[in-house]
C-alpha cells in the first residue's frame, strides 16, 4: 500500500500537544526547574545543580516519611485485598439482594475524600463522635489526636472503610464471569471449598485482582486528603505520609528547591513500581495466551 505523505496532518495532533503541554509537561518542567536552583528571595534564582537531590537523599525526614508511607500501603493492601475477596465470595449471586449489596457497597466510593476525612474526624471524637464516645464509655482510653497507635488504627480503618468496596466489586465481577460448569465439575470431582477457591476462583480472579491491587497501591501511595483532614499528619509526624510532608515542605515552609527534588523522586518511585506491576501483568497475560 502506498502511504500518502501529508505534513499538514501534524496540525491535527497540535491541539492534543498543546493541551498536554499546558496540563502536564510545562508544570512538570517548572518543578524540574525549581529542583536545580536556589533562591534567597527577590525572585532571584541561581544554579544549584543536584545539591537538593543530594540533600533529600540524606534527609531523615524524607526517609521516615517514605517508611511510613510504605508501611501504610502495605497494611491497607494486606487488609483490603483479603477482606474484599471475602466479601465478594459471600455476596448474593443474583436477585434483589445482590443489587442491594452492590449499591450499598458503592456508597463509600462516591464520597469525596475530604468528606470521608471529616466523617471519621467527628466519628472518632470522644465528646460527640459515636465511635469515640462508645469506646470511651466502654472504658477504652481512645484518643487518635494524642496516641500514635490510635491515630494509625483510625487512619487505616478509615481507608479500609472507604476502599475495600472497590476490591470487593472488582473481585465480584471476576467471580461472576466464572461459568456454572466449573462449580458443577468441582462438585463431581469432590473438590473441597478451599480447593474450589484455590483452583477455580482465585485463578479466574487473578486478572482483576492485579488491577485492583495496582489501583489501591497507587492511590494509597499518593494519599493526602483523608489523613490530612483526620489527623493533620499528627500526633507529631506519626501520620505524615509522603504527600503530606511534601505539601508541608513546599507550601508551609516554602522550600521550593528541596520540595521539587522530593516530588521528582516521589514521581520516579511511583513510575518504577507501576512499571514493575505492568510488566508482571503483561507477562502473566502472555503466559495465559500461550
Amino acid at each position, binding site marked *: 500500500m502506498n502511504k500518502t505523505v501529508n505534513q499538514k496532518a501534524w496540525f491535527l495532533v497540535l491541539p492534543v500537544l498543546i493541551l498536554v503541554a499546558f496540563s502536564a509537561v510545562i508544570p512538570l518542567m517548572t518543578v524540574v526547574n525549581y529542583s536545580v536552583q536556589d533562591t534567597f528571595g527577590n525572585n532571584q534564582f541561581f544554579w544549584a545543580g543536584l545539591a537538593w537531590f543530594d540533600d533529600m537523599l540524606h534527609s531523615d525526614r524524607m526517609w521516615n516519611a517514605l517508611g511510613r508511607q510504605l508501611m501504610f500501603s502495605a497494611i491497607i493492601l494486606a487488609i483490603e485485598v483479603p477482606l474484599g475477596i471475602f466479601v465478594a465470595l459471600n455476596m448474593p449471586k443474583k436477585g434483589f439482594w445482590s443489587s442491594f449489596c452492590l449499591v450499598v457497597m458503592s456508597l463509600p466510593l462516591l464520597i469525596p475524600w475530604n468528606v470521608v476525612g471529616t466523617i471519621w474526624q467527628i466519628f472518632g471524637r470522644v465528646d460527640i463522635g459515636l465511635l469515640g464516645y462508645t469506646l470511651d464509655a466502654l472504658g477504652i482510653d481512645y484518643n487518635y489526636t494524642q496516641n500514635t497507635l490510635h491515630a494509625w488504627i483510625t487512619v487505616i480503618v478509615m481507608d479500609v472503610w472507604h476502599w475495600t468496596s472497590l476490591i470487593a466489586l472488582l473481585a465480584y465481577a471476576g467471580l461472576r464471569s466464572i*461459568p456454572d*460448569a*466449573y462449580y*458443577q*465439575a468441582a*462438585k*463431581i*470431582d*469432590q*473438590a*473441597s471449598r478451599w*480447593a474450589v477457591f484455590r*483452583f*477455580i476462583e482465585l*485463578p*479466574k480472579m487473578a486478572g482483576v485482582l492485579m488491577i485492583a491491587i495496582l489501583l489501591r497501591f497507587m492511590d494509597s501511595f499518593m494519599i493526602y486528603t483523608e489523613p490530612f483532614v483526620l489527623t493533620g499528619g499528627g500526633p507529631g509526624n506519626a501520620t505524615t505520609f509522603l504527600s503530606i510532608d511534601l505539601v508541608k515542605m513546599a507550601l508551609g515552609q516554602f522550600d521550593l528547591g528541596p520540595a521539587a527534588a522530593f516530588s521528582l523522586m516521589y514521581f520516579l518511585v511511583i513510575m518504577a513500581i507501576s512499571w514493575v506491576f505492568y510488566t508482571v501483568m503483561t507477562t502473566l497475560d502472555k*503466559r*495465559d*495466551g*500461550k
Partner: protein
Amino acid sequence: MAKITLDNLAHSYLPNPQKEDDFALKELNHDWVDGEAYALLGSSGCGKSTLLNIISGLLIPSQGRVLFDGKDVTTAPTADRNIAQVFQFPVVYDTMSVRENLAFPLKNRRMDTAEIKRRVQKVAAMIDMEAQLDHKARGLTADAKQKISLGRGMVREDVNALLFDEPLTVIDPHMKWELRTQLKKLHQDFGHTMIYVTHDQTEALTFADKVVVMYDGRVVQIGTPQELFERPAHTFVGYFIGSPGMNLFDAQIDGNTARVGDATVQLDGNYAATGKTQLGVRPEFIRLSSGGGGIPAKVTRVEDVGRHKIVRLDVAGTQINAVAGEGEAIPADTDRITFASGGVNVYADDWRITPRGTAA
C-alpha cells in the same frame, strides 16, 4: 456400578408449578440397567441436561425419587453418589498441569499415590495426551481441554455411572470418532452404566445399546437403534431419527385401509384410531412408480448425496422424501408412490398405535 431407578420423577424450574407446561421434565419412571450404555437424544431445550443433573445430584427434583440400587439418593449431595460427569464445554483447572488435572478427582478421594500415578498414565494414553502431561492446562486448545475433562471423568474406575453432557461438541470431527470409540471401549472394559446426552443422532446410535429419545420434557421412546428406526413410537422420533426423517401423511383410518387424499392404502392390520390420524413412512420404504395404483406424486428434485439419492416429491402440496439407490434410475414419468410392506406405521395424535389383537 449401580442400577439407577427414576421413580415418578419430574422437575420444574418454577417455584410453584401448576400445569404440565410448567415442568421442564415431565413425570418419568425408568430403570437405567446396570452396565448398559444409554444415549439421551433430543433437540436443545427438551430436558436432557435437566435429567442428567438430577441423576448426578447437581439438581434436586421437584417431585419423585432417584434410587441407586434401591437406595434413595434423591437429596444426597453429588459427592455421596460417586458419579462422574463431563460437561459440554471444557472445564480444566487452569493453574494445574495436565497430570494434576487428571489426578485431581483421585486426590480429593485420598487415593494412594502409586495408584493415582497408574490411573493417570492409563487415562492419558486413552485420550492421547501422554506427551503433554506436564504442560500447564491453561495454554491448551479447546479440544485438548475437553479431552482433559473427559479424562477426569474416566479416571475413576469405581463410579456408579458415567454421565456425558454433549461432551464432543467442541471436538474436531476426526477426533470425535476416535474419542467415541475410546468411550465405547471403556464401557466394554469396565461395564459402567453410561448415559450420553447428545442431539446428534449418529453419535447416539453408534454409542449406545439403548437410545432414550426426549421431546418437550418427556421421554417419548426408549429402544435399540433398530426399534427407533423401524417402529418410532412418536412422530417426533420418526422425524428426528433418520436422514431425512420419516414422512407423515394425513390419513383416514378405517379398519385395515387408510385413505390418503383420494388414494387407498392397504394396512397390515386392523386399527381403531381416533383423533388426528397419520401414516408414517420412512423414505427408505417409499417406492416410485408410474401409472397404476398408489398416491399421486410429482418429483420436484433429486439430490445425490453420494451413497444414495434423495428424491423430493410433492404430494398434494406437502413435501415427501424418498431414498433411491445410487445406481437406480429415477424415471422421468414417475407420478405415483407406493409403500413397501412393513414400512408403514399408524399414528393417532402423534403416538404410534398398534393393530388390534397384537401387543406393542
